[in-house]
């Protein structure tokens, strides 16, 4: 598989003010697989639509950082890790099911 560089986007040094809710997102991929590319595309669309300016997204290629798979208990690829105040929510898959992602992000209640 081709090596991919870790992408780090929108990662300001200082956290946002407490009043505004910020999401720490981390997407784990393993190389440029179709699923990974699809997941990243889906995530970008979703974040821009719902979380504009209120998120940090980090994309981690496990092929380059295999130890992070162990440290963060990643098994499935792609996995989106959402750090919530109480817990860490993981969403696996290519994020094509937007509603579920939003549930995971605690943005939309289940209807």
């Amino acid at each position, binding site marked *: 598989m081709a090596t991919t560089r870790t992408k780090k986007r929108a990662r300001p040094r200082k956290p946002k003010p407490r009043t505004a809710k910020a999401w720490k997102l981390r997407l784990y991929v*393993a190389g440029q697989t179709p699923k990974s590319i699809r997941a990243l595309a889906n995530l970008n669309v979703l974040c821009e639509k719902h979380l504009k300016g209120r998120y940090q997204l980090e994309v981690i290629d*496990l092929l380059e950082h295999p130890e992070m798979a162990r440290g963060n208990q990643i098994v499935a690829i792609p996995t989106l890790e959402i750090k919530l105040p109480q817990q860490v929510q993981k969403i*696996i898959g290519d994020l094509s099911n937007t509603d579920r992602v939003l549930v995971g992000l605690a943005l939309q209640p289940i209807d």
Partner: protein
Amino acid sequence: MRHEKKPRRPSSQTLPKALTGIQGLDEITGGGLPSGRPTLVSGGAGSGKTMFGLEFLVRGATQCGETGVFISFEETIQDLTRNAASLGFDLDRLVAEKKLFLDHVHISRSEIAETGEYDLDGLFIRIADAVKRVGARRVVLDTIEALFGELPNPGILRAEIRRLFGWLKDQGLTTVITAERDRPDKLTRHGIEEFVSDCVIILDHRIREEISTRRLRVVKYRGSTHGTNEYPFLIDEHGISVLPISSLGLDHTAPAERVSTGIDRLDGMMGGKGFYRGSSILMSGTSGTGKTSVAAHFVDAACRRGERCLYFAFEESPKQIIRNMRSIGIDLEPWVHKGLLHFHAARPTYGGIEEVLLVTHKEISSFKPSIVVVDPITNLLMVSTLNEVRSMLTRLVDFLKTQEITAIFASLTAAGGDLEASEADVSSLMDTWLLLKAIEVGGERNRALYVLKSRGMEHSNQIREFVLTNDGLRMLDVYLGPEGVLTGSARVSQEGREKAAGTFRSQQLQGRGRELDRKRQIFEARMTMLRAEFEVEEEIIQQSIAESKLLDAELLQDRGQMVRSREADASAYKKVGSAPAARKR
């Protein structure tokens, strides 16, 4: 993926195998698990799958020089390390020495949501990384089916697991995949056995009559012969030990060396030399016939020779045996202190029959005795069927013979039972059979012993009585009377009678001797008298002969004077002498 296929180790076999180091398993599988391929180890809850996997890795790292990776899907690393410590494995040390890598894959369903297609590349990467870190040749996945409970979409999961197994195989990793078996008609809960086509081992944990037994069976081993039976196994502080039933062929050596029984006259009953070394001796008898005492003699004699003895006491505690044997003048305690004698005392009911067998094996393997006593084997029947006991004894006897260990098996015969018939099923395994018997006669029981069989040596056909004295066991001749064998008081009274008869006979003999003396004296006296008479007569006769000779001479002289006086022809008398003159008359 990125790892190149590692060269497989050269092997003389067609199928390269990786030794598991698990006692007995390598014998069953003819050299271990298929090297570079996955093996499925399936079993119910608590059947020892994780321990199997752990031992496979630990032995690989410590004995075979193959490092390993343990991917746990259920237990945390902390728990694993603690559990492994109970088997005597120090995982922390192995991890520190980079011989082992532990990874706990933890997924919580509550934290996971599925939003589309996924794959298990994350897991692949973790395994690949772990393998790379320690240069592993072995991988254990315990229990990968746990993923089915945590990850959605079983269809994808199945495909991914299949891919994983294929990948592991491509990497040339010897892999053990454990799986839960919850139904007897299926090997694994989620049917992953269809992806593992090379080797399948089933572990089982069964309870029968309140006694649990672990069993192992190699269901499938592609490209290799293997033992197909169910083999009992044990997990204890030294790990797993599997006991193959029939892996031992009948090709053990037969030493010609003999070992003394410790009882001179018993040796005498067997050609004067005792048992063959490495032979198995059955000693059967009803209770109180002195089985333990005979065994203690044997043990004592062996220890005196400096040999190591292992005593399996299934009925009495070692202290009790030592105390009791002191009463017949055998002190076993010094041998225990010297480390020559080791007692293993336990009720067989504590574990199953397999456990007994395995414990026996392990004790023998670690103590390396030259003499083993099992006292008694009958107690084993309490925990199992006759068939199982027999099969166990077959295995034990075979094992002992390959180790050239002389073994005495004491067997308690039920009172009133037929002594020989009841043991017929195990006696064929034995080389020598001593039968201890209580002979009831004249209102008392006495002990007797005979050698019922002894392969390959001449042996006495005599029944010998023996008594247990303060000074050990003493064997005596038994008297054969009209009612059969005489023992005990009957023997003593018979001895008395014989002694009386003997005294009488000797008195008679002395009397005859004296009579003869007397007769000789009389005879001699008469002889002397006769001789005296004869001498008297002889003297008289001699005297008369002399007198008549004198008379004759005088007569001749007188006649000559007469011729001269008559002037007769004197020349005739001068020439011829007196004879013609006598003729002429």
